[in-house]
């Protein structure tokens, strides 16, 4: 028994020696990128896009000869869509696994919890799916945002409304962190540019009836209705506007109106509805078309903005590491602060706090069953069909 124990130790020691001496010599000691992804729980389905984009980015970097001359590998855990678990896993990634670079999880709450851990260990985290602007008002240094900041979600609507001479605007928004920032930002801009804000109200997630709120907004006769919504409420707000025979000249239903399920759920009633989107496969950003091709080839499905945003965020991370020329976290942080970059996702530029200031949403409109880009002008694929005809005049 005792002999076997010695033998085991000897083998282990030998193995450790081999691992320690052989790997660097062959130049194969990889750079490990660690992240936690919600593989279970309420966020799991969307989070698969994030994971796939991470993997595609790793493939692409390795195909180009790696990062700083070393190959890149990915280490991923499941945070179960739970912020507490996420924080736990980032501890593990940094302390136990000693990963070289830290990439963000999916969703803002998990990013918030994880960023506290990263700040403690002074690890830069590029968090491609963290939205809430408040995350960058806590005095943290090592958290980098690449997603559209909430304050720039809906600003395109104001220009589109003014172009058509519309006068009054009403807001109804989900009570969430991101939309509590997005809505006042666009309301302020509207007011400044001469639109009159007639209503501004927040509703809790999961609201099943907007009839009271829409009755009020209809009575106020708002020309523009901005619904700060995600999928279920986007559908519901449009459907109930029709039921109440309220026909805003411009009906904007938020990010939730940009998904194909929105059109499927409403059919022809989705026509003329405007939506905001982080990204579109037709955007003329450098490398975008190639990214879409490769993603489709590898995974057999169209990438969405979660995939593109993650990929774009990692492009920025990669550029930062190359610019820094080392894995020194403070050098990378400085490089990321100085970069002004065009990724497939759009412009990357951060403020001193690490919050994104370069990226805006695009505004799209459903026209003949297809989404057309209206704003910003540079990437527009069609002219705005505004004002929208009243419900009674549609067939």
């Amino acid at each position, binding site marked *: 028994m005792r002999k076997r124990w010695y033998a085991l130790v000897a083998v282990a020691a030998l193995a450790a020696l081999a691992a320690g001496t052989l790997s660097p010599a062959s130049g194969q000691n990889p750079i490990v990128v660690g992240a936690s992804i919600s593989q*279970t729980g309420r966020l799991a389905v969307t989070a698969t896009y994030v994971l796939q984009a991470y993997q595609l980015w790793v493939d692409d970097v390795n195909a180009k000869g790696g990062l700083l001359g070393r190959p890149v590998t990915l280490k991923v855990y499941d945070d179960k869509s739970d912020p507490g678990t996420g924080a736990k896993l980032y*501890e593990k990634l940094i302390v136990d696994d000693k990963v070289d670079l830290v990439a963000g999880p999916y969703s803002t709450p998990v990013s918030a919890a994880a960023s506290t851990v990263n700040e403690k260990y002074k690890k830069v985290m590029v968090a491609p799916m963290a939205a809430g602007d408040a995350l960058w008002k806590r005095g943290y240094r090592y958290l980098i945002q690449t997603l559209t900041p909430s304050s720039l979600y809906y600003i395109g609507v104001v220009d589109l409304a003014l172009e058509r001479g519309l006068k009054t605007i009403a807001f109804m928004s989900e*009570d969430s962190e991101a939309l509590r920032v997005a809505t006042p930002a666009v309301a302020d801009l509207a007011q400044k540019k001469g639109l009159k804000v007639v209503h501004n109200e*927040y509703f809790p997630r999961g609201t099943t009836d907007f009839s009271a709120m829409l009755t009020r907004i209809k009575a106020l006769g708002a020309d523009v209705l901005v619904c700060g919504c995600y999928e279920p409420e986007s559908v519901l707000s449009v459907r109930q506007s029709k039921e109440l025979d309220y026909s805003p000249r411009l009906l904007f239903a938020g990010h939730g109106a940009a998904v194909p399920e929105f059109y499927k759920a409403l059919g022809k009633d989705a026509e003329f509805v405007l939506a905001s989107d982080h990204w579109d496969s037709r955007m003329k950003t450098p490398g975008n078309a190639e990214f879409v091709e490769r993603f489709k080839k590898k995974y057999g499905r169209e990438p969405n903005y979660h995939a593109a945003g993650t990929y774009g965020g990692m492009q920025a991370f990669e550029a930062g590491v190359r610019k820094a020329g080392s894995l020194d976290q403070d050098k990378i942080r400085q490089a990321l602060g100085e970069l002004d970059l065009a990724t497939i996702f759009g412009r990357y530029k951060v403020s001193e706090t690490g919050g994104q200031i370069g990226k805006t949403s695009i505004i799209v409109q459903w026209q003949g069953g297809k989404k057309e880009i209206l704003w910003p002008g540079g990437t527009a694929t069609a002219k705005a069909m505004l004002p929208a005809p009243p419900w009674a005049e549609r067939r």
Partner: protein
Amino acid sequence: MPRALLVGLALAGAGAVPLVANNYVLSVLISLAMFTGLAYAWNIISGYTGYLSFGQVTFFGVGAYTAAVLIIKLHVAWPLAALAGGLLAALLSLPLGWIMLRLRGPYFAIGMLGLSRIAERIAFAWEPVTDGGRGLYLPPVLDLRAVYWAVVLVAAALVGITSLLDNSRFGLRLLAIREDEGGADNLGINTTLAKLQAFVLSAFFPGVLGGIYAWHVSYVDPVTAFATQIDLTAIVAVLLGGAGTVWGPLIGGVTLSVLAEVLWARFPFIHTALFGALVIVTVLFLPKGLADAFRQRGWLAPGRAFLRRLAARPAPLEAAPE
């Protein structure tokens, strides 16, 4: 007394963990102790008293928000803030318990569920204090050891209180209410008072744990602070371990954590379904929980040791005064 020695050793052992463990292990242990503590708190009102509550998370959330607000706005030290969270939760539980405990069976269960949803909505709507859906951000926690000690202390206190309860007249009163409330009332037990006492205990500790949780994850928002999932985990831990027993919640909590780390991780996409299946299997095949199974095998001493010794005495000299 060897028993006291054993308890002392266990506490010292648990207290010494941070000296050797890294932060990841600490994080795992913190959530284990957190959920075990919540399970113990739930066990008092639901396991002993038989009032199945789907809404104790109300008090967890109240504690979390109280602590967060005190820390952010008044810069109160976090252990005090967590304690204040527990106190406010207990204070709130007095009128709420007085109302809710008039309900029985499914009415109480659904009423408590409704209560927790109201609490969540209030957290959304009471913007000046809670910042609505935006949530509250706390300063980052740099040292997990203190958090660990705090959670373990609360969990240990709950084990101690449950052990005392199990061996006390108060505990027997609660069990009597669980078995036959009308009968207990006829025996002269002040059932309203006993239920309320149990309810307050089951509110105070989740409040403290909520406060510690807020500090630990340094972010509180209505959805996560009042998540039904938190109650769910505590309930399943108690059922699995054995409701109305001293060691049940601990056994259940540890088993669940091990299952979570080992089993769930391998079947990520059916994690919730496995959880549901565990509930059904436990109810159908282990209605008294693992603690009972262990006891039958002689791995665990039967509960109410003191009362059993008392009952086994030859004859009482005179009736003990109440």
